[in-house]
């Protein structure tokens, strides 16, 4: 048996605020393999990965044993751990632009691998290392600054930097979630090429399926199922794994099925199996006895074949009721129409044509998807439809009336300002005012000057409660601030805010790309229901499978041109 390069034994991590983020995790990582930690946000997977490098705040309490190479990490001095960083284990962070010092050229970022350990980088090695990872013109490119790089290329450069000393282990924390899907594969391929064992943290099941050797499914600070990717992802055994996979959008499988319920709070003690409250197969002992990880799965209600033995429910989770078929009242009226719109931005001497030409009509209750790579102009087109921006040429019509026209710098139609169009953004936390309680954010559209009625605060709270219930947040605290909620809950609040204005058109810019698969599925369900009730919707995403399952039709945008 090969000696593992990284070995966790009953690791517990508790933060100073009481959050028990990792609750008894054991696994081994063998040389050269890629083990993926998957699970919803807040399941502790990032903490599980970072603890191996000693990157948690000093106040975090760590118990158990972590062996990195030949060194015990738990209880080791800060200086001992520092000497391992970069040499024995490297880190690849989520967003390459945030991982590099914005003030230094990328060559300096790579050179830091040596400087941090008081060494001088060997002559010419930086360029060679970058070139080996497929960076064209590396010698020229590396003198440029991070913001002048593309995301995919820069992520490869950070991998080259982390791999400079050929570490045994690379810890990759969501290394592709800031990148387009097509660049994600190249990035992971580069990561595997380094030859190091990879501990990959990801919420993207597709990426994991294509690149990892083994997968560990995490739930509430635990590993509930672990095994080879091919087995776990095609024949899931633990009910949570099944639910998670069912919630993952897949082009062939129709609309994903959301996982009911929410994960438990980790700052309170958990009795029994943490998944039991959401589990369709749970038996009374599940709520009292903590199931150990036996034969790669922590669930006692399964028989040897991995089927639930206690209940005659078979594969019901995988075959849960699909969404009701969407029939929609199709009024002939077109809600929004763009006629040959174009948008140019003047950036100093050069003009950038974000949208060259796009024509589009969206009807009542229709969901139109627009897909395309980053920078193809899809977000600008959304802003034109929302009349946030005035087109340089062409016309935008709202509800049969001209709203904006190229060459006329102001809006021609007061409809545009009345909450007729409401947006939903990619980053729900950023789109809500951090200092406002959620009831205030949700009812803010009602305080717009054109609304005749002045609402009192109690009235606004009642309205907020109603809309929160309509988006599935029944028991939430009206006075919660966005940061107290999960990302998925924030996105629901943002949708509730959009609905409060009773818009005729909702524009959604990558509404689920910041969310886990299970949360995303629920949001898609919610959007579909909203459209079913008559609101037209334009959804922009680079994830074409997702659009295929959600939308009535999907258009492609390429280099500023909308193709039909």
């Amino acid at each position, binding site marked *: 048996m090969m000696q593992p390069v990284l070995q966790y034994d009953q690791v517990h991590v508790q933060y100073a605020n009481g959050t028990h983020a990792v609750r008894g995790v054991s696994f081994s990582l063998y040389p050269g393999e890629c083990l993926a930690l998957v699970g919803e946000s807040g399941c502790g997977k990032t903490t599980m990965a970072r603890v191996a490098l000693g990157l948690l705040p000093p106040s975090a309490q760590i118990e158990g044993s972590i062996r990195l190479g030949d060194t015990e990490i738990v209880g080791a001095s800060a200086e001992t751990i520092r000497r391992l960083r970069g040499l024995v284990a490297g880190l690849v*962070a989520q967003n390459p632009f*945030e*991982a590099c*010092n914005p003030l230094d*050229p990328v060559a300096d970022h790579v050179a830091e691998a040596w400087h941090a350990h008081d060494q001088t980088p060997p002559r010419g090695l930086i*360029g060679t290392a970058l070139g080996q990872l497929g960076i064209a013109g590396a*010698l020229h490119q590396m*003198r440029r600054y991070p*913001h002048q790089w593309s995301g995919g290329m820069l992520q490869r450069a950070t991998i080259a930097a982390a791999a400079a000393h050929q570490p045994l282990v690379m810890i990759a924390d969501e290394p592709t979630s800031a990148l387009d899907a097509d660049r994600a594969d190249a990035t992971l391929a580069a990561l595997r090429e380094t030859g190091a064992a990879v501990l990959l943290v990801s919420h993207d099941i597709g990426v994991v399926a294509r690149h990892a050797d083994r997968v560990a499914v995490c739930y509430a600070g635990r590993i509930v199922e672990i095994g080879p990717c091919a087995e776990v992802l095609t024949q899931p055994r633990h009910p949570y794994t099944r639910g998670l996979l069912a919630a993952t959008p897949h082009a062939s499988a129709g609309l994903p099925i959301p996982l009911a319920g929410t994960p438990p709070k980790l700052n309170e003690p958990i009795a029994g199996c943490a998944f039991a409250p959401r589990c369709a197969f749970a038996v009374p002992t599940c709520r009292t006895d903590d199931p150990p990880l036996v034969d790669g799965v922590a669930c006692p209600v399964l028989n040897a074949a991995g089927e639930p033995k206690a209940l005659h429910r078979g594969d019901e989770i995988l075959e849960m009721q699909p969404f009701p078929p969407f029939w929609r009242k199709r009024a002939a009226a077109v809600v929004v129409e763009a006629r040959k719109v174009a948008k140019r931005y003047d950036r100093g001497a050069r003009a950038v044509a974000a949208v060259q030409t796009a024509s589009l009509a969206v009807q009542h209750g229709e969901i139109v998807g627009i897909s395309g790579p980053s920078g193809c102009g899809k977000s600008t087109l959304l802003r034109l439809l929302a009349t946030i921006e005035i087109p340089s040429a062409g016309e935008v019509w709202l509800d049969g009336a001209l709203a904006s026209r190229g060459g006329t710098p102001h809006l021609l139609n007061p409809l545009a300002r009345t909450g007729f169009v409401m947006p939903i953004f990619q980053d729900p936390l950023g789109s809500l005012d951090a200092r406002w309680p959620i009831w205030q954010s949700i009812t803010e559209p009602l305080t717009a000057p054109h609304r005749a009625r002045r609402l009192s605060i109690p009235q606004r709270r009642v309205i907020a409660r109603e809309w929160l219930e309509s988006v599935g947040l029944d028991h939430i605290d009206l006075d919660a601030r966005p940061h107290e909620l999960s990302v998925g809950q924030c996105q629901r609040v943002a949708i509730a805010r959009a609905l409060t204005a009773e818009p005729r058109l909702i524009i959604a810019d990558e509404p689920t790309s910041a969310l886990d698969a299970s949360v995303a599925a629920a949001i898609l369900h919610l959007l579909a229901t909203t459209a079913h009730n008559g609101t037209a919707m334009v959804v922009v995403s680079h994830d074409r499978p997702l659009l295929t399952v959600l939308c009535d039709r999907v258009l492609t945008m390429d280099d500023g041109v909308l193709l039909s």
Partner: protein
Amino acid sequence: MSISTLPTRSPLMSALPLVRALVGRLLQALLTLLGISVIIWALLPLAPGDPAQRLLQARGVQDPTPLQVAALRTELALDRPLPVQYAEWLGRAVRGDLSLSYQTGRPVLEELGKRLPATLLLAGTALVLSLLIALIGGLLGAAYHERWPDQLIRLLSQVGVSLPAFLAGLLALRYIVVEFNIGRVLSGGQWQYVLLPALCLAISRAADWAQLLRASLLEALGANYTLVASARGATKLRVLWRYALPNAALPFLTAIGVGIGGLIGGSAIIEAIFTWPGIGSYVFAAIAARDFPVVQGFVLLAGLSYITASLCVDLVALLVDPRLRDGGHA
């Protein structure tokens, strides 16, 4: 490092956006200066009291006749329309002639120039002191975040920010100069005695900057690039010095630019308290005497120093931050 030997873009090409940005800023600065001169010319005649009347009184004419006043007004060109006066003044100012002082009849530039070194010494020392104190305070505060050095520095800077310069000056006079006989009340502007007044001038600015630097450093220390740097084995000190400080310097620089301008213009009170023979105390007297050319010359000078300072700061920011050189935002 090996990369210095590698081929790269021609330095001329990469300097082009920098030059363009600088020329733009320079033009902007000149426009600002012109705006300042218009405002000061529009405001001064609104001040109560006729300069000719005051001047005659100052020359010992107790009750000047209207004839005498009118004659002096003609002599000082005060009887001409304001726009004409302004245009002539501007024409001379462009050639470096800031007109003659009403009181002494000597060129304003010469009068101001005579007192400038003392003020520059005071303001310069105050600037160096402020920067030193802010740098030490900010770095210590960020390095020992939420531990006792941080808490002590926060307390001190709170006190410092809320301590007005005149109060600091008076307290220093009473308890340091008089009690312990350190420094001098009547200094002649010599460099040996500059430390105490400069410290009084520096306190609130240093405290303000220390707080700002600490906050910017903490923000940089929370950024992902510092996490990645520590994950690659950089020591705490290296992360603070090599990563956090340059990034924190950017917002800090802007504050310094504003502060330097304030130092030149704001030293008047400290100069008065310590009888420092600088520009500030001189202009105080000129305002009382309605010596318009002196006041106008001073405002122009203060504006110029303010603009030069912010221009220098912009230049440094451009050198530090490559994103700004590409016309982006930090």
